[in-house]
């Protein structure tokens, strides 16, 4: 089976390791989406809007928020956990940042995310409550706090200028949001491939007992990963508030499932232990482009949902099916 695979990949002259296969396939799929979208615009409007740098940069800018959330989510998924508190961490960070305002806005936004992350990490690592359920509870608490804080309405406070600049400003024609995402990505790459914490995250995701017995400070690593994930959500929320100039209820709802989808489409194993950060970046781009092409095609929401779901399944099926229990 594996020898068959290796000859197949060799035929293309490049060696595709199992780690990289999803990334290559997802990248190919990104091109397919672009081609289909361009074909559509050429046929209907006679222009190749999708391929213009302005449009692509704009899509990447929108994608940055998802990209930052997905980066944090990836850390947690690599551990074999999941963070369902993302929606209201995003919203709470945005709301608190706009509520505080001034120079403290961004630090407050990040601190909110960090705090939520620390609580999540504490519950998962020290109380050993399954992350699925603990982060769900934290999400409910955050929602409750924000409803109590805002009275259930969109807060009237606005994002600071700095927040708006970070979200929509441009440096040398490149949206600042993309640069922020790029900075996060550099940090993630170093963290995951060059740092002891990164290695520890993979180890815990592979076999927590073995990592613990090897003297890895497993609990602290788990807390750190959740804290970083919370911070990423906080950063995304702060930027998102800058993007829409204010915070509003449910602004984070649209980020949870796409972030998980992007991470998994990028080849990270949902049960942890395996995955490369580059894959997550490609996964985010794929999700964002797919959404934008579908909206260009003016598909009704119903059709978009169906296609979105089918694409995820299709991608994962193409990646090769999981191992059977008998190996």
């Amino acid at each position, binding site marked *: 089976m*594996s020898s068959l695979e290796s000859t197949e990949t060799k035929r293309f002259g490049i060696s595709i390791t199992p780690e990289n296969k999803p990334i290559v396939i997802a990248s190919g799929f990104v091109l397919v989406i672009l081609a289909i979208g361009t074909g559509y615009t050429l046929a209907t409007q006679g222009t190749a809007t999708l391929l213009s740098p302005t449009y692509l940069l704009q899509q990447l800018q929108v994608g940055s928020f998802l990209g930052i959330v997905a980066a944090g989510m990836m850390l947690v998924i690599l551990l074999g956990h999941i963070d369902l508190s993302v929606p209201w961490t995003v919203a709470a960070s945005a709301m608190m940042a706009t509520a505080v305002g001034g120079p403290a806005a961004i630090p407050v936004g990040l601190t909110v995310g960090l705090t939520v992350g620390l609580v999540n990490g504490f519950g998962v690592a020290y109380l050993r409550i399954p992350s699925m359920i603990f982060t769900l509870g934290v999400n409910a608490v955050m929602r409750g706090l924000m409803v109590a804080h805002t009275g259930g309405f969109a807060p009237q406070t606005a994002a600071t200028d700095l927040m708006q600049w970070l979200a929509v400003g441009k440096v040398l024609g490149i949206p600042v949001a993309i640069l922020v995402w790029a900075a996060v990505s550099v940090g993630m790459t170093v963290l995951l491939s060059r740092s002891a914490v990164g290695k520890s995250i993979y*180890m815990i995701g*592979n076999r927590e007992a073995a990592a*613990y*017995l090897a*003297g*890895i400070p497993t609990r602290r690593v788990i807390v750190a990963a959740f804290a970083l994930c919370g911070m990423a959500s906080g950063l995304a929320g702060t930027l998102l508030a800058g993007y829409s100039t204010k915070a509003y209820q449910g602004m984070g709802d649209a980020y949870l499932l796409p972030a998980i989808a992007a991470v998994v489409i990028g080849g990270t194993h949902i049960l942890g232990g395996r995955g490369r950060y580059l894959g997550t970046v490609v996964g985010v781009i794929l999700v964002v482009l797919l959404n934008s092409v579908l909206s260009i095609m003016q598909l009704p929401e119903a059709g978009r949902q169906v296609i979105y779901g089918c694409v995820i399944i299709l991608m994962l099926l193409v990646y090769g099916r999981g191992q059977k229990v008998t190996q």
Partner: protein
Amino acid sequence: MRNENEQIASKPGKPTSHQLPHVVLTGISKRYGGVTALDTVDFACSRGSIHAVLGENGAGKSTLIKIMSGVVQPDAGQMSIAGQPVVFPNPASANAAGVICIFQELSLMPDLTVADNISIADPPRRFGLIDSRAQRRRAEEVLASIGCEDVNPLSRIRDLPLSRRQMVEIGKALTKNPSVLILDEATSALTAADVEKVFDILHRLRDQGLSILTISHRMHEIEAIADMCSVFRNGRHIETFVEGTRTNTEIVQMMIGREITAHFPPKHERPPDDPSAAPVLETRGLNWEGRLTDINLTVRRGEIVGLGGLDGQGQKELLLGLAGVLKSVSGEILINGKKTSVSSPEAAKAEGAEIALIPEDRKTEGLMLGMSIADNLTAASLGRYSRFQILDSAAVTEAVRSGIERMRIKVGSPEDPVSTLSGGNQQKVVIAKWLLTEPKIILLNDPTRGIDVGTKQEIYRLLRELADNGASILFYSTDYEELIGCCDRVDVMYDGRIVRELVGDEINEHEIIASALNIEGGEVPDFLAGSDGQGGAV
């Protein structure tokens, strides 16, 4: 022990003419990727005989029985049972043909009850639904037949000790009315008393005409039950002979294909350490949850201290306690005479303690199977190669290289997944991982269980070498040959206590067994003392 009115010659007997081949394999080959696991193997076993399959890890024994029991399918070759050609696409079809395998990795569902597990494949039914009363009765009968009346059929497997689980596993296999029974290291976790029960059962089944195939690394067990032996090496069937017609040395030679000079490295006559110096490791009155009671032991510099006794008498807990895995351990641990608190494996490996624990189960506790050899090797010593959390890749590469070299691990590339290695090489990775932390105290929890002869010998040599270089070693083994061959002193545990310390000439089979059973010498059961110690390391 043996049935008086056996019709078929019992061990050490000769295969009689009516022992016709029952299961016949011809030209069986199996490859996993680039690795040949079995190479055109011809093999047969007869009714009414217990047939032992011997070989190093990676010799193809496991693949052989996996093919016979339908877990994997051969690439080439045929199998027949009672003259009829058979093909087993899955374990269910093998079971249906009467081939039942008791696997080394337990095939029990830990969250289900004993009764559920015993009747899992074919439960008694009423109106199409499982009849839990009938199922329970069946479980009680089965448990009684294997002498496990103490197990409640309603208990979850998870709540049973390992030795009971393995007995349930055996009971489960017996309910399926096997005509061919395969045991893959099925006695490895059993207590001595249970082993005896199982052997009785096997003899009974053999006499009923079953064909029994067993894989074991314990030479004295094979001597005790096998009628026939087959040796495998590198995926080939080397030889089949009647048990007792070859010496252990000859068998070992067949298995590893080379001459073995000594089983155990010599214990050096070293000048004893200054007895006034504090021992490197000392415990005073350790207690834990009723499983460890008043443990006082010392390990000095350069010493290998063995932990003996029957399985499950607290040896594992003691090692885990010393490595900081157990909570609420009372008593004192002194390292180099200084009272030290070890609250986690992380604290255990830190300066001041420098303890390494080679855990019991390499697949779940020793290794991250999904990760590369390199990642596994450096897992315990990552802190040594990083500054401000960032890893120095040159230092990592160097550490990996030295680890592989030191333990002579056979690897293609260090980046290959550790799961591609054979069991023995995997265990070497576990040990190398800890040696990279340069520990002063090394705790080993049955490190040679299920490992081939060659690797075992290497591990024995290594332990002695480490001790000679100043390490202090505490070594738990279920194989008392190892304790005799390797250890300077042996502490024998019984029911959570150290009941006896054996020194020098006292370290012999008789004393170990007597104190393991917590009895005075002279009442040792015949079977346990049966091995002569020669070649017991197999």
